[in-house]
Protein backbone atom coordinates (compact mmCIF):
# COMPACT_ATOMS: atom_id res chain seq x y z
CA UNK A 1 0.00 0.00 0.00
CA UNK A 2 1.15 3.50 -0.76
CA UNK A 3 2.08 5.46 2.35
CA UNK A 4 0.97 8.73 0.79
CA UNK A 5 -1.48 8.82 -2.06
CA UNK A 6 -2.35 12.14 -3.64
CA UNK A 7 -5.15 12.32 -6.20
CA UNK A 8 -5.82 15.21 -8.54
CA UNK A 9 -4.72 17.69 -5.95
CA UNK A 10 -5.34 21.32 -6.88
CA UNK A 11 -4.60 24.57 -5.11
CA UNK A 12 -5.20 28.09 -6.41
CA UNK A 13 -3.91 31.35 -5.02
CA UNK A 14 -5.96 34.18 -6.49
CA UNK A 15 -5.30 33.85 -10.23
CA UNK A 16 -2.31 31.52 -9.86
CA UNK A 17 -2.68 27.76 -10.05
CA UNK A 18 -0.02 26.70 -7.54
CA UNK A 19 -0.71 22.96 -7.76
CA UNK A 20 -2.57 21.66 -10.78
CA UNK A 21 -4.26 18.23 -10.56
CA UNK A 22 -1.20 16.45 -9.16
CA UNK A 23 -1.46 12.71 -8.52
CA UNK A 24 1.32 10.80 -6.81
CA UNK A 25 1.88 7.63 -4.84
CA UNK A 26 4.74 7.35 -2.40
CA UNK A 27 5.63 3.83 -1.35
CA UNK A 28 6.63 2.58 2.05
CA UNK A 29 10.35 2.95 2.69
CA UNK A 30 11.24 4.90 -0.41
CA UNK A 31 12.79 8.33 -0.65
CA UNK A 32 10.62 10.33 -3.01
CA UNK A 33 12.01 13.57 -4.40
CA UNK A 34 10.10 16.62 -5.56
CA UNK A 35 12.36 18.60 -7.81
CA UNK A 36 11.44 21.93 -9.30
CA UNK A 37 12.34 25.60 -9.61
CA UNK A 38 11.07 28.27 -7.25
CA UNK A 39 7.32 28.57 -7.51
CA UNK A 40 6.90 25.09 -8.99
CA UNK A 41 4.38 24.21 -6.28
CA UNK A 42 6.55 21.87 -4.18
CA UNK A 43 6.09 23.69 -0.92
CA UNK A 44 2.36 24.20 -1.52
CA UNK A 45 2.01 20.47 -2.20
CA UNK A 46 3.88 19.64 1.00
CA UNK A 47 1.76 22.10 2.98
CA UNK A 48 -1.37 20.32 1.79
CA UNK A 49 0.07 16.90 2.66
CA UNK A 50 0.90 18.15 6.16
CA UNK A 51 -2.58 19.70 6.62
CA UNK A 52 -1.27 23.25 6.96
CA UNK A 53 -3.02 24.25 3.77
CA UNK A 54 -6.37 23.02 2.45
CA UNK A 55 -6.64 21.73 -1.12
CA UNK A 56 -9.23 23.36 -3.37
CA UNK A 57 -9.80 19.99 -4.96
CA UNK A 58 -8.51 16.42 -4.82
CA UNK A 59 -7.73 13.93 -2.06
CA UNK A 60 -4.85 12.97 0.16
CA UNK A 61 -4.67 9.52 1.73
CA UNK A 62 -2.04 8.48 4.23
CA UNK A 63 -1.85 4.74 4.93
CA UNK A 64 -5.39 4.47 3.65
CA UNK A 65 -6.73 7.25 5.90
CA UNK A 66 -8.33 10.40 4.55
CA UNK A 67 -6.29 13.40 5.72
CA UNK A 68 -9.41 15.53 5.99
CA UNK A 69 -10.96 13.13 8.49
CA UNK A 70 -7.92 12.10 10.51
CA UNK A 71 -5.48 15.02 10.52
CA UNK A 72 -4.26 14.42 14.08
CA UNK A 73 -3.58 10.70 13.68
CA UNK A 74 -1.83 11.31 10.38
CA UNK A 75 0.26 14.23 11.61
CA UNK A 76 1.35 12.08 14.56
CA UNK A 77 3.11 9.77 12.06
CA UNK A 78 4.87 12.60 10.25
CA UNK A 79 8.14 14.30 10.96
CA UNK A 80 8.26 17.64 9.18
CA UNK A 81 11.45 19.57 8.51
CA UNK A 82 10.43 22.94 7.09
CA UNK A 83 12.28 25.10 4.64
CA UNK A 84 12.21 28.15 6.92
CA UNK A 85 13.64 28.23 10.41
CA UNK A 86 10.65 28.08 12.74
CA UNK A 87 12.51 27.00 15.84
CA UNK A 88 11.10 28.54 18.98
CA UNK A 89 13.53 31.35 19.87
CA UNK A 90 11.88 31.88 23.24
CA UNK A 91 12.97 28.41 24.37
CA UNK A 92 16.42 26.83 24.76
CA UNK A 93 17.78 24.27 22.30
CA UNK A 94 16.81 21.38 24.59
CA UNK A 95 13.40 22.89 25.36
CA UNK A 96 12.73 23.18 21.65
CA UNK A 97 12.97 19.40 21.44
CA UNK A 98 11.20 18.50 24.68
CA UNK A 99 8.37 20.95 23.97
CA UNK A 100 7.97 19.46 20.53
CA UNK A 101 7.95 15.95 22.00
CA UNK A 102 5.16 17.05 24.32
CA UNK A 103 3.01 18.02 21.35
CA UNK A 104 3.23 14.34 20.40
CA UNK A 105 2.28 13.25 23.93
CA UNK A 106 5.69 11.78 24.61
CA UNK A 107 6.13 11.49 28.39
CA UNK A 108 8.56 13.85 30.07
CA UNK A 109 11.40 11.42 30.86
CA UNK A 110 11.20 9.79 27.46
CA UNK A 111 11.13 13.24 25.81
CA UNK A 112 14.27 14.24 27.66
CA UNK A 113 16.00 10.99 26.76
CA UNK A 114 15.09 11.25 23.08
CA UNK A 115 16.05 14.91 22.97
CA UNK A 116 19.50 14.30 24.41
CA UNK A 117 20.00 11.40 22.00
CA UNK A 118 18.93 13.61 19.08
CA UNK A 119 21.33 16.36 20.15
CA UNK A 120 24.15 13.84 20.26
CA UNK A 121 23.23 12.45 16.89
CA UNK A 122 23.38 15.88 15.28
CA UNK A 123 26.49 17.02 17.14
CA UNK A 124 24.62 19.60 19.18
CA UNK A 125 25.22 18.05 22.60
CA UNK A 126 27.22 21.07 23.80
CA UNK A 127 24.41 23.45 22.91
CA UNK A 128 21.52 22.03 24.90
CA UNK A 129 21.11 25.13 27.08
CA UNK A 130 21.95 27.66 24.39
CA UNK A 131 19.48 30.06 22.96
CA UNK A 132 18.45 29.62 19.34
CA UNK A 133 20.02 32.88 18.26
CA UNK A 134 23.41 31.64 19.44
CA UNK A 135 23.35 28.83 16.85
CA UNK A 136 24.92 29.03 13.41
CA UNK A 137 22.80 28.45 10.32
CA UNK A 138 24.07 24.88 10.04
CA UNK A 139 23.29 24.13 13.67
CA UNK A 140 19.76 25.47 13.29
CA UNK A 141 19.18 23.20 10.28
CA UNK A 142 20.48 20.23 12.22
CA UNK A 143 18.24 21.11 15.15
CA UNK A 144 15.24 21.36 12.81
CA UNK A 145 16.07 17.89 11.58
CA UNK A 146 16.48 16.57 15.11
CA UNK A 147 13.11 18.10 15.99
CA UNK A 148 11.47 16.47 12.98
CA UNK A 149 12.64 13.05 14.19
CA UNK A 150 11.60 13.41 17.83
CA UNK A 151 8.40 11.37 17.38
CA UNK A 152 10.17 8.53 15.52
CA UNK A 153 8.08 9.33 12.45
CA UNK A 154 7.04 6.76 9.88
CA UNK A 155 7.24 9.40 7.20
CA UNK A 156 9.67 12.28 7.20
CA UNK A 157 8.88 15.26 5.02
CA UNK A 158 11.77 17.56 4.25
CA UNK A 159 11.60 20.88 2.45
CA UNK A 160 15.06 21.90 1.22
CA UNK A 161 16.83 20.30 4.20
CA UNK A 162 20.36 21.26 3.20
CA UNK A 163 19.81 24.70 1.72
CA UNK A 164 22.64 27.03 2.75
CA UNK A 165 24.63 24.34 4.53
CA UNK A 166 28.40 23.94 4.34
CA UNK A 167 29.61 20.67 2.77
CA UNK A 168 30.32 19.02 6.13
CA UNK A 169 26.85 19.72 7.49
CA UNK A 170 25.27 18.66 4.23
CA UNK A 171 27.18 15.40 4.34
CA UNK A 172 26.04 14.78 7.92
CA UNK A 173 22.41 15.36 6.93
CA UNK A 174 22.67 13.10 3.90
CA UNK A 175 24.26 10.33 5.96
CA UNK A 176 21.48 10.61 8.50
CA UNK A 177 18.78 10.48 5.83
CA UNK A 178 20.35 7.40 4.29
CA UNK A 179 20.45 5.72 7.69
CA UNK A 180 16.78 6.53 8.21
CA UNK A 181 15.97 5.00 4.89
CA UNK A 182 17.87 1.91 5.97
CA UNK A 183 15.52 1.79 8.96
CA UNK A 184 12.51 1.87 6.64
CA UNK A 185 11.45 5.48 7.19
CA UNK A 186 9.62 6.81 4.15
CA UNK A 187 10.93 10.17 2.96
CA UNK A 188 9.42 12.95 0.93
CA UNK A 189 12.13 15.37 -0.06
CA UNK A 190 11.64 18.73 -1.77
CA UNK A 191 14.81 20.03 -3.26
CA UNK A 192 16.33 22.22 -5.92
CA UNK A 193 19.64 20.49 -5.41
CA UNK A 194 20.11 17.95 -8.20
CA UNK A 195 22.98 16.18 -6.47
CA UNK A 196 20.86 15.73 -3.41
CA UNK A 197 18.05 14.20 -5.42
CA UNK A 198 20.47 11.93 -7.30
CA UNK A 199 22.19 10.80 -4.10
CA UNK A 200 19.15 10.27 -1.92
CA UNK A 201 16.03 9.66 -3.97
CA UNK A 202 14.69 6.38 -5.30
CA UNK A 203 12.21 8.25 -7.45
CA UNK A 204 11.99 11.86 -8.48
CA UNK A 205 9.04 13.89 -9.69
CA UNK A 206 9.99 17.00 -11.62
CA UNK A 207 7.49 19.75 -10.96
CA UNK A 208 6.96 22.91 -12.94
CA UNK A 209 4.17 25.44 -12.73
CA UNK A 210 2.13 23.24 -10.46
CA UNK A 211 2.38 20.07 -12.54
CA UNK A 212 4.45 16.92 -12.50
CA UNK A 213 6.31 16.84 -15.80
CA UNK A 214 8.20 13.60 -15.29
CA UNK A 215 8.41 10.87 -12.70
CA UNK A 216 10.96 8.06 -12.52
CA UNK A 217 14.16 6.97 -10.81
CA UNK A 218 17.02 9.45 -11.33
CA UNK A 219 18.72 7.01 -13.73
CA UNK A 220 15.49 6.30 -15.54
CA UNK A 221 14.83 10.01 -16.01
CA UNK A 222 18.33 10.56 -17.31
CA UNK A 223 18.28 7.76 -19.86
CA UNK A 224 14.78 8.68 -21.04
CA UNK A 225 15.18 12.43 -21.36
CA UNK A 226 18.85 13.04 -22.16
CA UNK A 227 20.77 9.78 -22.48
CA UNK A 228 23.68 8.72 -20.29
CA UNK A 229 26.18 11.15 -21.76
CA UNK A 230 25.90 14.66 -23.12
CA UNK A 231 28.12 16.17 -25.81
CA UNK A 232 28.74 19.89 -25.45
CA UNK A 233 30.09 22.20 -28.12
CA UNK A 234 31.39 25.60 -27.12
CA UNK A 235 29.75 28.43 -29.08
CA UNK A 236 32.42 30.87 -30.21
CA UNK A 237 31.80 34.03 -32.25
CA UNK A 238 30.04 33.35 -35.53
CA UNK A 239 29.99 29.57 -35.09
CA UNK A 240 26.41 29.17 -33.78
CA UNK A 241 24.66 28.90 -37.17
CA UNK A 242 27.22 26.46 -38.50
CA UNK A 243 26.95 24.19 -35.48
CA UNK A 244 23.16 24.29 -35.49
CA UNK A 245 23.05 23.56 -39.24
CA UNK A 246 25.37 20.60 -38.85
CA UNK A 247 23.44 19.13 -35.90
CA UNK A 248 20.14 19.61 -37.74
CA UNK A 249 21.53 17.90 -40.80
CA UNK A 250 22.37 14.92 -38.61
CA UNK A 251 18.87 15.04 -37.07
CA UNK A 252 20.29 15.10 -33.55
CA UNK A 253 18.45 16.00 -30.35
CA UNK A 254 20.20 19.18 -29.21
CA UNK A 255 19.56 22.33 -27.23
CA UNK A 256 21.12 25.80 -27.44
CA UNK A 257 22.27 26.71 -23.93
CA UNK A 258 23.81 30.03 -25.11
CA UNK A 259 27.43 29.46 -24.11
CA UNK A 260 27.35 25.88 -25.32
CA UNK A 261 25.17 23.70 -27.46
CA UNK A 262 24.27 20.39 -25.85
CA UNK A 263 23.58 17.20 -27.76
CA UNK A 264 21.54 14.46 -26.13
CA UNK A 265 20.78 10.80 -26.88
CA UNK A 266 23.80 10.37 -29.11
CA UNK A 267 26.71 8.00 -29.49
CA UNK A 268 29.08 10.45 -27.92
CA UNK A 269 32.45 9.04 -28.92
CA UNK A 270 31.41 8.61 -32.54
CA UNK A 271 29.91 12.09 -32.72
CA UNK A 272 33.04 13.69 -31.27
CA UNK A 273 35.15 11.87 -33.82
CA UNK A 274 32.89 12.76 -36.72
CA UNK A 275 32.79 16.43 -35.76
CA UNK A 276 36.57 16.45 -35.27
CA UNK A 277 37.13 18.11 -38.63
CA UNK A 278 35.35 21.33 -37.63
CA UNK A 279 37.97 22.57 -35.13
CA UNK A 280 35.18 23.23 -32.64
CA UNK A 281 35.81 22.98 -28.92
CA UNK A 282 33.86 19.83 -28.15
CA UNK A 283 33.66 17.47 -25.17
CA UNK A 284 31.40 14.95 -23.52
CA UNK A 285 30.36 14.42 -19.92
CA UNK A 286 27.96 12.31 -17.86
CA UNK A 287 24.36 13.46 -17.95
CA UNK A 288 22.87 14.79 -14.71
CA UNK A 289 19.43 15.49 -13.34
CA UNK A 290 20.21 19.12 -14.01
CA UNK A 291 20.14 18.48 -17.75
CA UNK A 292 16.66 16.98 -17.50
CA UNK A 293 15.58 19.78 -15.28
CA UNK A 294 16.61 22.37 -17.85
CA UNK A 295 15.13 20.39 -20.71
CA UNK A 296 11.80 20.08 -19.00
CA UNK A 297 11.49 23.42 -17.26
CA UNK A 298 13.45 25.69 -19.60
CA UNK A 299 16.34 28.02 -18.94
CA UNK A 300 14.45 31.25 -18.43
CA UNK A 301 13.74 32.54 -14.95
CA UNK A 302 10.30 31.36 -13.94
CA UNK A 303 9.45 33.89 -11.28
Amino acid at each position, binding site marked *: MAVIKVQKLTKN*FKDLVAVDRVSLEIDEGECFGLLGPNGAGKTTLVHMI*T*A*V*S*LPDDGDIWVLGKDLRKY*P*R*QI*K*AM*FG*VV*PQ*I*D*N*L*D*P*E*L*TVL*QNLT*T*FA*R*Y*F*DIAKDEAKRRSMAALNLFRLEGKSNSRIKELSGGMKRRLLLA*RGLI*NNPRVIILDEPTIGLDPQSKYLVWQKLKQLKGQGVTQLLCTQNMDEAAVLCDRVAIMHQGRVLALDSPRGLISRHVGDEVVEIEVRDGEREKIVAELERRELDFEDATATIQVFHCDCDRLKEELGGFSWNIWSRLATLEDIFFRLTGRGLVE
Partner: protein
Amino acid sequence: MRLPSWRSFRMWQRNRDVFLRLWRSIAPGFIFEPIIMLLALGLGFGYFMGVIDELEYMEFIVPGVIATYAMTSATFECTYGAFFRMEYRRTYDSILATPLNIEDVVAGEIFWGATRSLVTATIILVVAVLFQLLPSPWVLLVPVVAVLEGVMFASIGMAFVSLAPSIYSFNYYFTLFIAPITFFSGAFFPLDSFPEAVQVVSSIVPLTPAVELIRALVQGEFHPGLLLSLVYIIFLAGLFFFISMVAMRRRVID
Protein backbone atom coordinates in the same frame (compact mmCIF):
# COMPACT_ATOMS: atom_id res chain seq x y z
CA MET B 1 -16.71 24.89 12.87
CA ARG B 2 -14.13 22.62 14.46
CA LEU B 3 -13.69 22.59 18.21
CA PRO B 4 -10.45 22.68 20.14
CA SER B 5 -9.44 19.56 22.05
CA TRP B 6 -7.58 18.96 25.31
CA ARG B 7 -4.45 19.35 23.19
CA SER B 8 -4.84 23.11 23.59
CA PHE B 9 -3.25 22.42 26.97
CA ARG B 10 -0.01 21.66 25.08
CA MET B 11 0.00 25.17 23.66
CA TRP B 12 -0.76 26.53 27.12
CA GLN B 13 2.21 24.56 28.51
CA ARG B 14 4.47 25.97 25.82
CA ASN B 15 3.46 29.52 26.74
CA ARG B 16 3.85 28.77 30.44
CA ASP B 17 7.39 27.48 29.88
CA VAL B 18 8.31 30.62 27.96
CA PHE B 19 6.78 32.75 30.70
CA LEU B 20 8.73 30.92 33.41
CA ARG B 21 11.90 31.47 31.42
CA LEU B 22 11.33 35.13 30.65
CA TRP B 23 9.11 36.40 33.48
CA ARG B 24 11.79 38.74 34.77
CA SER B 25 11.62 40.78 31.59
CA ILE B 26 7.80 40.76 31.54
CA ALA B 27 7.45 41.60 35.24
CA PRO B 28 7.46 45.44 34.93
CA GLY B 29 4.22 45.32 32.95
CA PHE B 30 2.19 43.17 35.29
CA ILE B 31 3.76 43.79 38.71
CA PHE B 32 5.30 47.24 38.95
CA GLU B 33 3.04 49.18 36.62
CA PRO B 34 -0.22 48.32 38.39
CA ILE B 35 1.35 49.04 41.77
CA ILE B 36 2.68 52.38 40.58
CA MET B 37 -0.72 53.14 39.06
CA LEU B 38 -2.46 52.27 42.31
CA LEU B 39 -0.14 54.40 44.43
CA ALA B 40 0.18 57.31 42.03
CA LEU B 41 -3.53 57.65 41.37
CA GLY B 42 -4.56 56.68 44.87
CA LEU B 43 -2.24 59.04 46.67
CA GLY B 44 -2.07 61.74 43.99
CA PHE B 45 -5.67 62.02 42.79
CA GLY B 46 -6.96 60.71 46.09
CA TYR B 47 -5.83 63.95 47.73
CA PHE B 48 -8.28 65.94 45.56
CA MET B 49 -11.02 63.37 45.06
CA GLY B 50 -12.12 62.99 48.60
CA VAL B 51 -14.53 60.17 49.34
CA ILE B 52 -16.49 58.22 46.66
CA ASP B 53 -19.36 56.01 47.78
CA GLU B 54 -17.99 56.17 51.32
CA LEU B 55 -14.59 54.95 50.11
CA GLU B 56 -11.20 56.56 50.00
CA TYR B 57 -10.19 57.04 46.33
CA MET B 58 -7.41 54.46 46.65
CA GLU B 59 -9.92 51.89 47.90
CA PHE B 60 -12.28 52.87 45.10
CA ILE B 61 -9.73 52.19 42.34
CA VAL B 62 -8.33 48.86 43.59
CA PRO B 63 -11.00 46.88 41.66
CA GLY B 64 -10.48 49.17 38.66
CA VAL B 65 -6.73 48.55 38.64
CA ILE B 66 -7.26 44.79 38.98
CA ALA B 67 -9.78 44.68 36.11
CA THR B 68 -7.71 46.98 33.89
CA TYR B 69 -4.45 45.09 34.29
CA ALA B 70 -6.17 41.72 34.00
CA MET B 71 -7.43 43.05 30.66
CA THR B 72 -4.06 44.30 29.44
CA SER B 73 -2.24 41.11 30.46
CA ALA B 74 -4.55 38.93 28.38
CA THR B 75 -4.64 41.51 25.62
CA PHE B 76 -0.88 41.84 25.18
CA GLU B 77 -0.53 38.07 25.14
CA CYS B 78 -3.25 37.62 22.53
CA THR B 79 -2.46 40.58 20.28
CA TYR B 80 1.23 41.41 19.95
CA GLY B 81 2.33 38.09 21.45
CA ALA B 82 0.10 35.90 19.31
CA PHE B 83 0.73 37.90 16.14
CA PHE B 84 4.45 37.69 16.73
CA ARG B 85 4.32 33.94 17.19
CA MET B 86 2.13 33.53 14.12
CA GLU B 87 3.77 35.89 11.61
CA TYR B 88 7.38 36.39 12.67
CA ARG B 89 8.41 33.38 14.71
CA ARG B 90 6.31 30.99 12.60
CA THR B 91 5.65 29.08 15.81
CA TYR B 92 2.13 28.18 14.70
CA ASP B 93 3.46 26.57 11.51
CA SER B 94 5.82 24.37 13.48
CA ILE B 95 3.11 23.32 15.94
CA LEU B 96 0.59 22.61 13.21
CA ALA B 97 2.96 19.91 11.91
CA THR B 98 2.21 17.99 15.13
CA PRO B 99 -1.11 16.46 16.24
CA LEU B 100 -2.33 19.90 17.32
CA ASN B 101 -4.83 21.61 15.03
CA ILE B 102 -5.22 25.35 14.66
CA GLU B 103 -8.17 25.37 17.09
CA ASP B 104 -5.96 23.80 19.75
CA VAL B 105 -3.32 26.45 19.18
CA VAL B 106 -5.80 29.32 19.35
CA ALA B 107 -7.62 27.97 22.41
CA GLY B 108 -4.25 27.41 24.10
CA GLU B 109 -3.35 31.02 23.43
CA ILE B 110 -6.67 32.22 24.85
CA PHE B 111 -6.42 30.08 27.98
CA TRP B 112 -2.89 31.25 28.46
CA GLY B 113 -4.02 34.87 28.10
CA ALA B 114 -6.63 34.18 30.79
CA THR B 115 -3.93 32.67 32.96
CA ARG B 116 -1.93 35.87 32.62
CA SER B 117 -5.02 37.80 33.76
CA LEU B 118 -5.30 35.49 36.75
CA VAL B 119 -1.64 35.97 37.71
CA THR B 120 -1.85 39.75 37.37
CA ALA B 121 -5.11 40.04 39.30
CA THR B 122 -3.73 37.86 42.08
CA ILE B 123 -0.56 39.89 42.41
CA ILE B 124 -2.49 43.16 42.68
CA LEU B 125 -4.84 41.57 45.20
CA VAL B 126 -1.92 40.51 47.36
CA VAL B 127 -0.42 44.01 47.17
CA ALA B 128 -3.77 45.52 48.08
CA VAL B 129 -4.04 43.20 51.08
CA LEU B 130 -0.58 44.28 52.17
CA PHE B 131 -1.80 47.88 52.01
CA GLN B 132 -4.88 46.81 54.00
CA LEU B 133 -7.18 47.95 51.22
CA LEU B 134 -9.47 44.93 51.01
CA PRO B 135 -12.10 44.45 53.64
CA SER B 136 -14.42 41.78 52.18
CA PRO B 137 -13.68 38.03 52.24
CA TRP B 138 -15.48 37.83 48.90
CA VAL B 139 -12.22 39.01 47.26
CA LEU B 140 -11.26 35.36 47.14
CA LEU B 141 -13.60 35.11 44.16
CA VAL B 142 -11.87 37.93 42.29
CA PRO B 143 -9.48 35.49 40.51
CA VAL B 144 -12.48 33.67 39.08
CA VAL B 145 -13.78 36.88 37.55
CA ALA B 146 -10.26 37.67 36.33
CA VAL B 147 -10.16 34.35 34.46
CA LEU B 148 -13.53 34.98 32.79
CA GLU B 149 -12.49 38.49 31.93
CA GLY B 150 -9.20 37.11 30.63
CA VAL B 151 -10.94 34.62 28.33
CA MET B 152 -13.10 37.46 27.04
CA PHE B 153 -10.28 39.89 26.27
CA ALA B 154 -7.95 37.17 24.99
CA SER B 155 -10.70 36.03 22.60
CA ILE B 156 -11.44 39.56 21.41
CA GLY B 157 -7.69 40.00 20.88
CA MET B 158 -7.38 36.76 18.89
CA ALA B 159 -10.36 37.72 16.74
CA PHE B 160 -8.53 40.94 15.93
CA VAL B 161 -5.28 39.02 15.26
CA SER B 162 -7.14 36.99 12.63
CA LEU B 163 -7.82 40.22 10.73
CA ALA B 164 -4.69 42.25 11.46
CA PRO B 165 -2.69 42.90 8.28
CA SER B 166 0.44 43.88 10.19
CA ILE B 167 1.83 44.31 13.67
CA TYR B 168 1.18 48.06 13.40
CA SER B 169 -2.55 47.38 13.32
CA PHE B 170 -2.42 46.83 17.05
CA ASN B 171 -1.68 50.51 17.56
CA TYR B 172 -5.27 51.07 16.50
CA TYR B 173 -6.50 48.31 18.75
CA PHE B 174 -4.84 49.83 21.78
CA THR B 175 -5.51 53.48 20.98
CA LEU B 176 -9.08 53.18 19.75
CA PHE B 177 -10.32 50.24 21.83
CA ILE B 178 -8.30 49.41 24.93
CA ALA B 179 -7.49 52.99 26.02
CA PRO B 180 -11.03 54.40 25.72
CA ILE B 181 -12.72 51.44 27.37
CA THR B 182 -10.36 51.80 30.29
CA PHE B 183 -11.74 55.27 30.92
CA PHE B 184 -15.36 54.48 30.12
CA SER B 185 -15.48 51.41 32.33
CA GLY B 186 -15.80 53.06 35.71
CA ALA B 187 -12.40 51.69 36.71
CA PHE B 188 -11.05 55.05 37.80
CA PHE B 189 -14.13 57.30 37.97
CA PRO B 190 -17.62 56.52 39.15
CA LEU B 191 -19.86 55.99 36.13
CA ASP B 192 -22.57 58.34 37.42
CA SER B 193 -20.12 61.23 37.06
CA PHE B 194 -20.34 60.88 33.26
CA PRO B 195 -22.98 62.55 31.05
CA GLU B 196 -25.89 60.26 30.21
CA ALA B 197 -24.76 59.53 26.61
CA VAL B 198 -21.36 58.43 27.89
CA GLN B 199 -23.02 56.24 30.47
CA VAL B 200 -24.76 54.35 27.66
CA VAL B 201 -21.38 53.72 26.01
CA SER B 202 -19.99 52.71 29.36
CA SER B 203 -22.65 50.15 29.90
CA ILE B 204 -21.70 48.25 26.73
CA VAL B 205 -17.89 48.34 26.83
CA PRO B 206 -16.65 44.91 27.93
CA LEU B 207 -14.46 46.15 30.77
CA THR B 208 -17.42 47.67 32.67
CA PRO B 209 -19.00 44.39 33.82
CA ALA B 210 -15.60 43.12 34.98
CA VAL B 211 -15.02 46.29 37.01
CA GLU B 212 -18.52 46.05 38.50
CA LEU B 213 -18.15 42.42 39.51
CA ILE B 214 -14.70 42.86 40.99
CA ARG B 215 -15.80 46.00 42.83
CA ALA B 216 -18.77 44.17 44.30
CA LEU B 217 -16.53 41.32 45.49
CA VAL B 218 -13.97 43.69 46.96
CA GLN B 219 -16.60 45.67 48.84
CA GLY B 220 -18.81 42.68 49.64
CA GLU B 221 -21.88 44.55 48.40
CA PHE B 222 -24.11 42.86 45.84
CA HIS B 223 -27.15 43.81 43.75
CA PRO B 224 -29.17 41.91 41.14
CA GLY B 225 -27.62 43.89 38.24
CA LEU B 226 -24.37 42.00 38.82
CA LEU B 227 -25.92 38.86 37.43
CA LEU B 228 -26.39 40.68 34.15
CA SER B 229 -22.71 41.74 34.23
CA LEU B 230 -21.69 38.13 34.72
CA VAL B 231 -23.91 36.92 31.89
CA TYR B 232 -22.58 39.68 29.64
CA ILE B 233 -18.94 38.67 30.25
CA ILE B 234 -19.70 35.01 29.63
CA PHE B 235 -21.67 35.87 26.50
CA LEU B 236 -18.89 38.02 25.02
CA ALA B 237 -16.22 35.51 26.03
CA GLY B 238 -18.13 32.69 24.33
CA LEU B 239 -18.98 34.70 21.25
CA PHE B 240 -15.44 35.90 20.59
CA PHE B 241 -13.95 32.53 21.50
CA PHE B 242 -15.91 30.95 18.67
CA ILE B 243 -15.30 33.84 16.30
CA SER B 244 -11.58 33.53 16.85
CA MET B 245 -11.69 29.76 16.22
CA VAL B 246 -13.33 30.20 12.84
CA ALA B 247 -11.45 33.33 11.83
CA MET B 248 -8.02 32.02 12.81
CA ARG B 249 -8.58 28.82 10.83
CA ARG B 250 -9.41 30.96 7.84
CA ARG B 251 -6.32 33.07 8.38
CA VAL B 252 -3.74 30.37 9.09
CA ILE B 253 -4.98 27.36 7.08
CA ASP B 254 -5.42 28.95 3.67
